[in-house]
């Protein structure tokens, strides 16, 4: 029979454009303490997008085939035109032959809308503060207190109120945000049906600012810790500032690829070059609390409050800080890949990817403080630390080589059975030159109570007042090599049904880390069963056991993790810098169990997917590289209920339950619902440790290292994610879709002491010290909820015209103990107990000798006001992402042509 002639085809639509207007309104709430109303447009609502009121062209697309009678086509697309998140894609080509494509894409990233700053950027990377402001702050931070001459402790109390009340109100409002603008050109050519070549060039500019925290010295609390409490505070070294880090990067990427494939084999060759050009490689920023570089100051006994027989000193203070921003770098990767059939039943595949990473930006000097000096040839301290010739090299000449190789063999010896053997090798070699440096961290250069002047940089024999040693440092080159071998077998027992079993071994070798060699042994299994075409059950399980051969922290003085040996060492006055039982979770022995289960039911009108996943990592394993016996201080029931054999992460557990379902009530109406519940739980143990000298060990004034000061922290995140919605499609004319979703998360950090808090006797080798501001207490709960309600109405007016109305409501409830109380100063801070603070109505902490101190309430964040009196000379940006409510109304017309 001769078939009937085909019906004439409808002319295809060339494209569509959607345009209209948008109105956005909303408010930011939850920060009644702020003296201004943050703009919802710059809130987290627009973190990566750009919802603003005005004319909008959300979408445009056009396709033109056989243009000008040729066989070529042109395709144009755009999204969010004219806005900060706009995208464009233009393609010219011939189907199956070649393609030339240009893509332009912008992505904003807004960090916060509550920031204020004293700083003004005068040139790229240079931030200054008005001299008068600096002078005032210097005076207030060194010489002004209720009863002059002032000590550091007195000023730490008087300074906060002054800054909060007098300085912060005059700061500039800023919105730290960056914008990525990327243009990409791609040319791809199918030279033959078997042979393709392509070249891609991408150039991205990332420009803007983001918050960065910086110090002028090694510690923001140096003012409190590096000088005798009675020394009158001539000048404090412990200062810091949070500033907007200037970003001006260009990322250039080149990719050249060629692939050739025949019936039984295929190969690919490629090159990728990535080049980062950072136009601002250093950040120079004024010290709010110093108008000029200040050298080390020393005081004779009796002078300026220096008590005792030894001289007192205060460290050097820079007028400006200097930090090295990310250096420009480039990376080159070659890619060789191939796949070959060896006969009818075996296929081998392989890749070889060598890589070269390079970085050679010029070094900055050791310090920006011209009043710190290095010794000259005679030993006299005459060479300023700002001198570049002090450095062993002008730049790093950083070089790394990587090599990734994968070899895979797949065999199908019999029908429905497949075996796989995979070998993977990854080598990360750091061949950067090694040389010795003499880092200047700031005040430790001079804060030595026994000194008569500045200490000598690089002298390993001298010790600062706070106990840290000034020494030369030979930088090390960490690197690693990882080898993985896997064998597995699949049996495809029926359609959509299979069983898989396998084994994997991983050999991990590291240099300059604690576990030089480890082996991880894994077994895994998976089963997919489809007893009915509409029903599918998937299950997978994996068990891995990682064992390092040795765990040797180079800072643990060669001591083993053995309680008896550690007790002996402590008696001998040995204090390893790192605890010998400390284990970093990425290197430590670990037992890992992972299980996934999924059920999919898919009828014509009803679909359902339910899933469960758990991942359970257990690091707390006795023996091996860990302690064989519990490290707990308390014995008996207290220890047996939670014994631990290492310090660091003990457990990392997660449980996830999820389902989604959809049901079509009729061809016009469908419903969907989703729910996911997640629980994450982590547990870690630490020990409060401070160095002691042989002559004064055991939790006296000289330091402390006792299991009685072990503490535990558990981290718990719980998330519930809901969504439900309805889609209506009436008479092929009217579309209505609406949904509501809620992502509700809450996080807790619980901490508690594990020892005996009654051991408070001075000189007790196991004296309990987790008291007052050093108490192990839970943090306030962090909650985040994102509500979204959306309703979209579309009406097909004609074949070509479709008006659309959209309403979007989004609410973000955020209560984060770290940022919700932040202001450019530290909120209303308060010392541990008792003392009144200028500008602060109440004290926050009660009980400086209590292991369970309590807090008085804050009006906007119950139970908590930030503030660290020992770091009083730190000025922040006040960066927060407060809660918001935003309504977006959009009316557009879609025209199809």
């Amino acid at each position, binding site marked *: 029979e001769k078939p009937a002639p085909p019906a004439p085809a409808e002319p295809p639509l060339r494209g569509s454009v959607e345009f209209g207007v948008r109105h956005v309104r909303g408010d930011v709430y939850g920060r009644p303490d702020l003296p201004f109303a943050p703009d919802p447009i710059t809130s987290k609502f627009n973190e990566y997008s750009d919802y603003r009121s005005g004319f909008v062209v959300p979408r445009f697309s056009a396709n033109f085939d056989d243009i000008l009678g040729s066989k070529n086509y042109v395709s144009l697309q755009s999204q969010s035109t004219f806005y900060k998140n706009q995208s464009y894609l233009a393609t010219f080509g011939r189907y199956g032959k070649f393609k030339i494509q240009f893509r332009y894409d912008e992505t904003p990233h807004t960090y916060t809308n509550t920031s204020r700053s004293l700083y003004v950027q005068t040139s790229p990377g240079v931030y200054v503060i008005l001299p008068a402001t600096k002078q005032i702050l210097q005076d207030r931070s060194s010489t002004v207190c209720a009863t002059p001459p002032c000590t550091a402790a007195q000023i730490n109390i008087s300074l906060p109120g002054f800054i909060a009340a007098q300085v912060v109100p005059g700061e500039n409002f800023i919105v730290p945000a960056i914008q990525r603008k990327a243009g990409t050109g791609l040319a791809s050519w199918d030279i033959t*049906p078997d042979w393709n070549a392509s070249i891609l060039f991408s150039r991205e500019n990332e420009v803007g600012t983001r918050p*960065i925290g910086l110090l002028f010295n090694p510690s923001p609390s140096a003012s409190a810790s590096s000088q005798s409490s009675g020394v009158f505070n001539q000048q404090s070294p412990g200062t810091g500032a949070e500033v907007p880090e200037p970003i001006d990067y260009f990322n250039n990427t080149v990719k050249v690829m060629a692939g050739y494939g025949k019936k039984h084999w295929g190969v690919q060759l490629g090159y990728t070059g990535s080049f980062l050009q950072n136009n601002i490689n250093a950040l120079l920023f004024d010290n709010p609390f110093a108008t000029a570089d200040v050298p080390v100051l020393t005081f004779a006994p009796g002078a300026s409050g220096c008590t005792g027989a030894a001289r007192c000193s205060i460290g050097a203070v820079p007028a400006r800080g200097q930090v090295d921003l990310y250096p420009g770098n480039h990376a080159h990767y070659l890619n060789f890949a191939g796949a070959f059939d060896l006969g009818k039943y075996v296929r081998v595949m392989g890749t070889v990817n060598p890589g070269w990473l390079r970085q050679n930006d010029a070094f900055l000097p050791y310090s920006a403080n011209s009043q710190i000096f290095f010794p000259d040839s005679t030993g006299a301290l005459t060479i300023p630390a700002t001198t570049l010739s002090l450095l062993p090299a002008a730049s790093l000449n950083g070089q*790394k080589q990587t090599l990734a190789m994968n070899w895979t063999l797949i065999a199908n010896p019999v029908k429905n059975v497949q075996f796989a053997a995979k070998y993977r090798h990854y080598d990360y070699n750091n061949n950067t030159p090694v040389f010795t440096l003499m880092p200047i*961290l700031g005040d430790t250069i001079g804060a030595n109570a026994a000194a008569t002047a500045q200490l000598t940089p690089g002298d390993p024999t001298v010790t600062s007042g706070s106990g840290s040693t000034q020494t030369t440092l030979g930088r090390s080159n960490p690197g690693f090599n990882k080898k993985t071998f896997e064998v597995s077998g699949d049996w*495809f027992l029926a359609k959509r*049904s299979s069983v898989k079993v396998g084994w994997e071994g991983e050999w991990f070798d590291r240099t300059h880390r604690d576990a030089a060699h480890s082996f991880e042994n894994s077994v895994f299994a998976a089963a997919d069963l489809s007893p009915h075409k509409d029903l599918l059950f998937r299950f997978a399980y994996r068990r891995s056991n990682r064992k390092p051969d040795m765990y040797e922290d180079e800072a643990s003085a060669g001591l083993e993790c053995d309680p008896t040996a550690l007790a002996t060492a402590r008696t001998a006055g040995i*204090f390893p810098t790192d605890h010998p039982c400390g284990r970093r979770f990425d290197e430590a022995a670990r037992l890992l169990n992972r299980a996934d289960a999924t059920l999919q039911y898919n009828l014509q009108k009803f679909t359902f997917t339910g899933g469960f996943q758990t991942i359970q990592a257990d690091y707390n394993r006795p023996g091996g590289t860990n302690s064989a016996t519990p490290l707990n201080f308390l014995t008996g029931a207290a220890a047996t209920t939670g014994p631990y054999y290492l310090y*660091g992460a003990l457990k990392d557990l997660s449980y996830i339950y999820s389902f989604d379902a959809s049901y079509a009530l009729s061809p016009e109406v469908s419903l969907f619902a989703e729910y996911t519940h997640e629980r994450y739980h982590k547990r870690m143990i630490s020990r409060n440790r401070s160095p002691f000298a042989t002559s004064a060990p055991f939790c006296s004034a000289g330091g402390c290292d006792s299991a009685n000061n072990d503490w535990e922290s558990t981290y718990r995140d719980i998330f519930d994610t809901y969504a439900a919605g309805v889609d209506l499609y009436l008479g092929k004319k009217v579309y209505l879709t609406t949904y509501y979703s809620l992502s509700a998360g809450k996080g807790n950090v619980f901490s508690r002491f594990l020892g005996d808090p009654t051991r408070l006797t001075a000189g007790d080798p196991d004296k309990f010290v*987790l008291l007052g501001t050093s108490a*192990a207490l839970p943090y306030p709960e962090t909650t985040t909820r994102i509500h979204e309600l959306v309703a979209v109405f579309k009406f097909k007016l004609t074949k070509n015209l479709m008006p659309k109305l959209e309403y979007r409501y989004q609410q973000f409830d955020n209560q984060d103990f770290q940022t919700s109380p932040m202001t450019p100063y530290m909120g209303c801070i308060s010392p541990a107990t008792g003392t009144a603070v200028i500008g602060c109505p109440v004290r926050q902490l009660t009980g400086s000798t209590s292991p369970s101190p309590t807090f008085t309430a804050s009006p906007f964040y119950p139970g908590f006001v930030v503030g660290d009196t020992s770091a009083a000379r730190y000025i922040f940006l006040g960066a927060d992402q407060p809660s918001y409510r935003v309504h977006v109304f959009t009316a557009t017309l879609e025209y199809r042509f």
Partner: protein
Amino acid sequence: AAGEREQATKSPPAQAASQPKSAGAADGDYVGTETCLGCHEDQNRRYKNTVMGKVMARPRTALEARGCESCHGPGRAHVEAGGSKETIPIRFGKDSNNSIEEQNATCLACHARGNRLFWKGSPHESRAMACVDCHQVKQEIQRAVSGDVRYSAPLTENKGVKKSQPELCLQCHQMRRAQLQRSSHMPYREGKVTCTSCHNPHGTPNPKQLIQSTTNENCLTCHTERRGPFLWEHPPVMENCANCHEAHGTNNPQLLKVRMPRVCDTCHVASRHPTTPTLLNAIRDFNRGCTNCHSTLHGSNHPSGNKFLR
């Protein structure tokens, strides 16, 4: 002609062990596209406007020249039976009598190169996933209104998938759907990053089907400033970004798995301040936590940056 026939019927490189069911069919078993269109014009009307339809309209190989039968196999038996699905040698979808392997082999006859080179043995292949679980051939993607308003998808020319990303992947990877809703996230919901920005669902020899060789090489494709080499390296950073970050979303700042200072405390069981369980009003607890001071912890190139302070 003999050579063309051989090309049209031999198995593709990726599927030597599982040839398309049409392999071995004689020339006379093929009836030609015109015959198919006699009954299936509706499908053709949609299909011919797809990219694949446009490519096949100007066939480059003998296999492509088979038209409908290049995928569905020789149609003579179907025509002679007067229709019926059962007589179509290759059909796709869950109602098909063909095995997943047979269905996929048909697609791989043309699509075995490029980013499908490592399909064989990949996780999706070994879990018996069919190409048509995600892809559709006879019509281009139709943006569902609900999908459109929940997630923005990046602009793409690939319209041969059933749903836009990330919706397509989230159908099975449900926990990722929840993670994408988190407050701390990369711009997935906003359509600037999507699943295939990092993963190749067709298989790669790399962990987690990553496009790049390692997690770090993947992350550093965009975050190039953190690539180094640095004068002072932070080894866990250098080895694996996922030691501290959860790329799919968290409720902690900077996609951290655990909030500061605990994310640092977990490893830094040394002495002094990392081991002191300070109250929440300590400077290492609030605001940026440890990075209030140690802001260059991804690596520092400053000669005095050994503590990642500058």
